[in-house]
């Protein structure tokens, strides 16, 4: 292995290490953001679960741009029965 290649590998190792740390640091923030997106979707389509919803023309106009949010909402419905596991998995290992 050449010196140059070794140096590159070390550089890559620290780069990945940094990336992992950055991801860990933003996990909670990301969880919060996903929750907010879920609430945003619920705000728009809350009439399905008995919440007051905006006028139909607003929801219909936004719906085509909201495929990610809708997927997220359905994913949340699937794990809704086990909220504790969801929180624990988000907090991760100590």
């Amino acid at each position, binding site marked *: 292995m050449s010196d140059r290649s070794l140096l590159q590998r070390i550089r890559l190792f620290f780069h990945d290490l940094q990336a992992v740390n950055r991801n860990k640091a*933003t996990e909670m923030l990301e969880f919060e*953001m996903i929750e*907010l997106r879920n609430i945003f979707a619920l*705000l728009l389509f809350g009439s399905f679960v008995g919440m007051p919803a*905006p*006028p*139909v023309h*607003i929801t219909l106009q*936004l*719906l085509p741009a909201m495929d990610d949010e809708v997927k997220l909402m359905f994913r949340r419905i699937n794990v809704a029965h086990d909220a504790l596991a969801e929180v624990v998995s988000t907090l991760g290992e100590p």
Partner: protein
Amino acid sequence: MASRKPVDAMSKDRVHNRADEPIHARVLLFVGKGGVGKSTSSSLFALKLARAGKRVLLNSIDPAHNLHDIYQTALGPKPKTIVPGLEVMETNLDQWVKKYLKDTERNFRSVYRYQESFNLHRYFRTLKYAPGLEEYAVLLALVDCLRRFADRDYVIFDTPPTALTLKFLALPDVSLLWLSELSQFRQLILDKQQIITRIRRENGKAGRERDPILGKIADMVDLYRGMSELLKNPGTTSTFLVLNPDELSLAESRLIWEEMSNLKMRIPYLILNKADGDGSFLKRLDGLFPGVRTLPLPASAGNPMTGIENLDSVELPLDVGEI
């Protein structure tokens, strides 16, 4: 003549009473309880304005059209010239609901192609009965009419009875309230997304301006703000509240006046249709509608008030130049 611009509910077209798409026309709305003579009054005013050399479009957005009976000619969603300067049309609201749902369904299909098996068309067939769609159809028809006939001197609307009219007049403001909340919420999400992207040093879609949802919200805000400003501006829109000399009509007119005041829409004129008798009812109106000019329209003026000849023989209770 202005180029025809069909309203695509999903398009980025906007309604402006300013800047790039100026609406020169003065908008006149005839509102009131069902059967008080909104169609008759609007027909009379439209004819008188046309006779005074103005270019006028009269559009009935009432699901129960009467204009064809008053002008004694067949009318439809295409404008028909009745006398020089006066075009009249009757908007089919059902068609607007259908068109809107069709556009929306087409848009849905292009995005949710994988959900074809859900038989979306069945859902859309039911959706036409969803609360709020009728007033939205009225608003779409109004916007489309104002765009197409923006160069007329006057665009006059013969409106539906009270409940539907108040709902569609409130729709721009109600929509703006919702959109303001949704916009703030969406920005909160995008702010968080930007922080995450910055920390992770990703080159993702963090830019707020690229968010399609916020873009659609901004388009809708533009549309409804334009409509709200247009309807509230006394320089562009005048409302004529029509009533008969009876208690029910008076009570409902008071309700309309209060609701429109809440929406910050001023009513400059009150038309007392069939204002016969000793004038005691006219006196009763004093103080009930502050700042409103009352225009008595006697029933005997043109009996029956149908047909061009009869309408021509009626004298307008104000000078057309004042409108």
